[in-house]
């Protein structure tokens, strides 16, 4: 079976896609996988391993150069595209897997002939609906700015019907290096090199048996060379092959860079990720059980991937201090539990829940963790069609909650408060929906002044509502996005708002239902657990 996997995103995404491809190969051992990747990702070719039998280059850079140079004909780019499509069609693929999930790849796959296509693709120039609920969900959540309860790779793999698992083999225990990846691809995600230098100096005193290595890519040499690191710290400008070699013998990796993080996660290296700027711990954290992630608590975190930091100073970076990282790294190196010392930061440990990536907040309130778990498990329950099964009422999902959480530690009062908040939010959304409906009528009358006034009032009400009720913004994040995004037309604004209201209500209704059921389950804990045990 010949399979074409299309991976046309960044290097970090490609590294994650490789994990999905290995899982696909495990399920389809006879598959011969060809990988289509960007010319800029070719440096990774040497570490792709045996899963990929052939690499085909997508000449992104060359095409883009032709397209922007005014003295060159568009037809040069067209002919090159034609040559690529012919090359791909000559391979006569049985299956095409779209790991990229964007418009470019969806249109490219439209041009490739294959009996089976999976993921997003067009048919004769028109978008087609997703094959499964996971596909719809992945498209909705990961294409927008919504808060996703799942890791990007978990969502992508399920949308392609690939059974991905979290690695449960425990941590690799290299004995030689403690590595510090000091730069990322984006200035707003960097922890300062001075702090990394100080970190190396402090850790070196406690762990002289390890070699401390500062990692950087060869093209970053000029930036890293200008900084001083403590005596004895090695600086390696490592290619991907060299990086793999170093990571094989690494005890701990401290990194802000997600590409290196994804590679290390697949090698089961224990790591401490420092997430700032647009690095989102839920979407793209390290898929390596028992790794840790530290994030700031500033209100603008995580920010958008598309723009540079609008703040006068990098607030994220300022918040994470050297001693915070030193104390957590020491706990990790000593295999000790860690109790957070800085209340301004969030600390997470990566765990495996039902073969899904899950982040357990350290020192956070039990209800907060439970809420995150409910959200993830509820969606999993819904997207996997578990609701079609007879009993138990919430299937394997609720059993997982019951097994992992000591419900007695969570008070009825906190759950009742959450239910009250959900119900208030629903009432508010209903009234907002009515206001939006009025605006639709005004749009047809083209009364722009009145529409602007309504938009202003809606925004004001939103602010008052969230302040007064202290509703967790995550639940109405979709509404917030609709209200703050720029829309060219009043009708566009209302249309977006109405669909966001509907989406927000669906999210809250699901959370409300499962929280109520969980509260009932808690009350009837004895009989419920025995029933669950009978069935497990």
């Amino acid at each position, binding site marked *: 079976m010949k399979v074409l996997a299309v991976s046309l995103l*960044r290097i970090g995404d490609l590294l994650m896609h490789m994990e999905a491809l290995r899982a696909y190969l495990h399920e389809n051992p006879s598959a011969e996988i060809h990988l289509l990747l960007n010319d800029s990702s070719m440096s990774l070719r040497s570490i792709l391993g045996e899963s990929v039998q052939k690499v085909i280059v997508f000449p992104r850079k060359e095409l883009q150069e032709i397209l*922007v140079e005014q003295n060159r004909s568009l037809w040069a780019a067209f002919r090159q595209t034609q040559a690529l499509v012919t090359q791909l069609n000559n391979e006569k693929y049985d299956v095409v897997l779209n790991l990229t999930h*964007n418009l470019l790849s969806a249109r490219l796959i439209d041009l490739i002939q294959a009996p089976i296509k999976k993921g997003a693709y067009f048919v004769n120039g028109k978008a087609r609906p997703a094959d499964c609920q996971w596909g719809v969900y992945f498209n909705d959540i990961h294409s927008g700015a919504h808060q996703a309860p799942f890791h990007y790779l978990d969502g992508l793999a399920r949308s392609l019907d690939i059974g991905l698992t979290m690695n449960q083999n425990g941590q690799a225990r290299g004995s030689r290096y403690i590595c510090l990846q000091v730069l990322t691809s984006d200035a707003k995600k960097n922890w300062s090199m001075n702090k990394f230098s100080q970190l190396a100096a402090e850790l070196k005193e406690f762990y002289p048996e390890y070699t401390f290595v500062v990692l950087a890519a060869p093209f970053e040499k000029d930036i890293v060379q200008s900084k001083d690191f403590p005596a004895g710290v090695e600086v390696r400008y490592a290619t991907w092959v060299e990086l793999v070699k170093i990571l094989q013998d690494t005890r701990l990796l401290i990194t802000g860079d997600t590409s290196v993080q994804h590679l290390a996660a697949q090698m089961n290296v224990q790591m401490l990720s420092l997430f700032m700027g647009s690095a989102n711990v839920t979407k793209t954290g390290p898929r390596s059980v028992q790794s840790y992630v530290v994030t700031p608590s500033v209100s603008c975190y995580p920010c958008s*991937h598309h723009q540079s930091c609008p703040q006068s100073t990098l607030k994220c970076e300022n918040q994470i201090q050297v001693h915070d990282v030193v104390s957590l790294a020491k706990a990790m190196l000593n295999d000790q539990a860690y109790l957070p010392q800085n209340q301004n930061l969030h600390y997470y440990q990566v765990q495996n829940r039902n073969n899904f990536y899950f982040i357990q907040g350290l020192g956070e309130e039990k209800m907060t963790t439970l809420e995150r778990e409910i959200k993830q498990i509820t969606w999993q329950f819904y997207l996997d069609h578990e609701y079609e099964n007879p009993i138990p009422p919430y299937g394997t999902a609720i059993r997982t909650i019951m097994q992992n959480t000591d419900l007695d530690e969570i008070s009825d009062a906190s759950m009742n408060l959450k239910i009250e908040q959900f119900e208030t939010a629903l009432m508010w959304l209903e009234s907002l929906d009515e206001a939006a409906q009025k605006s639709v009528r005004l749009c047809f009358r083209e009364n722009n002044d009145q529409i602007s006034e309504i938009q202003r009032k809606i925004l004001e009400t939103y602010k008052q509502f969230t302040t007064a009720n202290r509703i967790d913004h995550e639940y109405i994040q979709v509404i917030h996005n609709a209200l703050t995004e720029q829309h060219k037309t009043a009708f566009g604004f209302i249309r977006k708002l109405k669909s966001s209201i509907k989406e927000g209500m669906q999210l809250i209704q699901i959370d409300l239902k499962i929280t109520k059921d969980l509260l009932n389950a808690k009350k009837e804990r004895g009989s419920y657990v025995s029933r669950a045990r009978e069935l497990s």
Partner: protein
Amino acid sequence: MSQELESYLKLALLRLEKAYEEVVKTQGYTRDTEKLKMLLELTREQVPNENSRHSASQTR
């Protein structure tokens, strides 16, 4: 992204859109128009708009 590059990209988008419209006018929808659409998406990814997040960055 520099303003100069952004204006080049916007110009490239205009050229591609015009070429696409011309081809559709004369031939209707074909696989060739789909190739032009693909090139349009490729260019859009580079302009700082809602599709720009998937542009490729420099790597090792």
